[in-house]
């Protein structure tokens, strides 16, 4: 085998004559093209992930659901404001952290170091997404607690007219149930989309990283 690989080596070096050849102009054109590298993809997707929770407020139904009017009636307005402040503070921290790590990625590192840095950058976004999912659940929870503590929920929400024949207590628990269900489904959906994207994007990277780790083991 040793000899065979040596044979291959000799042949390999002879094969240069058969390789394609690009002209100065062709190469010059290329340096102005946009990179489609994984790191760039991760950058774009991370930006979307940072923006997504904020973009949700643009949906009319979501905005109404979280409207301060509804929240004021339930008496949880100050809780929601506090949560928003925390959310923005943490988001800025994560964006700063993400940017710092993104800048550290260098194609001049050795392969293992490069993959490690990409994973670290990606992990920052992952933690942010987990934080967002927890926040979404918390907002739903605040609403649920607010609704549960409200003695006259049906009256608060002006639903008296529409629900004459239904027992108010039963209606209240039904609404809380719907809210809880929506919270779980929504969080699971957001989380599912995110982790699927994350997995697909880093599958090859993960594979090669494990391979390098195996060599070191």
């Amino acid at each position, binding site marked *: 085998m040793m000899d065979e690989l040596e044979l291959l080596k000799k042949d390999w070096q002879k094969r240069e004559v058969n390789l394609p050849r690009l002209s100065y102009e062709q190469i010059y054109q290329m340096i102005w093209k946009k990179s489609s590298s*994984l790191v760039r993809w991760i950058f774009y997707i991370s930006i979307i992930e940072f923006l997504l929770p904020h973009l949700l407020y643009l949906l009319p139904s979501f905005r109404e659901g979280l409207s301060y009017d509804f929240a004021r009636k339930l008496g949880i307005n100050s809780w929601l404001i506090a949560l928003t402040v925390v959310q923005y503070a943490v988001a800025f921290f994560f964006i700063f952290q993400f940017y710092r790590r993104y800048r550290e990625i260098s194609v*001049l590192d*050795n392969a*293992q170091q490069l993959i490690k840095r990409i994973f670290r950058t990606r992990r920052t976004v992952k933690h942010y997404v987990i934080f967002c999912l927890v926040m979404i659940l918390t907002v739903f929870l605040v609403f649920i607690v607010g609704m549960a503590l409200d003695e006259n929920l049906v009256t608060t929400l002006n639903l008296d007219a529409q629900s004459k024949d239904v027992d108010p207590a039963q209606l209240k628990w039904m609404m809380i149930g719907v809210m809880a269900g929506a919270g779980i489904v929504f969080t699971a959906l957001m989380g599912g989309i995110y982790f699927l994207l994350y997995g697909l994007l880093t599958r090859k990277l993960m594979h*090669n990283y494990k391979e390098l780790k195996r*060599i070191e083991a």
Partner: protein
Amino acid sequence: MNKELEHQFVTELEQNQNIVHKVCSLYTNNRDAHNDLFQEITIQLWKAYPKFRGDSKFSTWMYRVALNTAITLYRKSKRKPATQDYDSVIYKISAEEYDPTQEQQLKLMYSAVKQLGDIDKALVFLYLENKNYAEIAETLGITEVNARVKMNRIKTKLRTILNP
């Protein structure tokens, strides 16, 4: 100044483009993908070029960037036909030294190498390019001893592929 940098870079890359073509031929299976990867490596080289101080040879520096791009940064292009029309380039033979048995053996070796994983391919590539184990280890971020051990394992793996 910038124009000069561009000119310097393109000239150096034009002279050393074989290295990039060889990486592309190992990591892709058709001409479109080859060109795609070549372009991505060129972009990465150009982006990193201002940091290239000339303390190593341009070609040495290229190996690392080209392999990093192939192993880590490159995302396979969507328009990938299933056929392997590309093999013709690395398997092409020069008529004067045609030796049927040897040729057959080489052909098998090349296709065996192409079946290896990304990391194994990088090791074989650097080995074929006459790099020593210290350089191979440096490029991949592993120790020299482990690079040697891994290379021996790859040889065994190739042997199994060749003689099933």
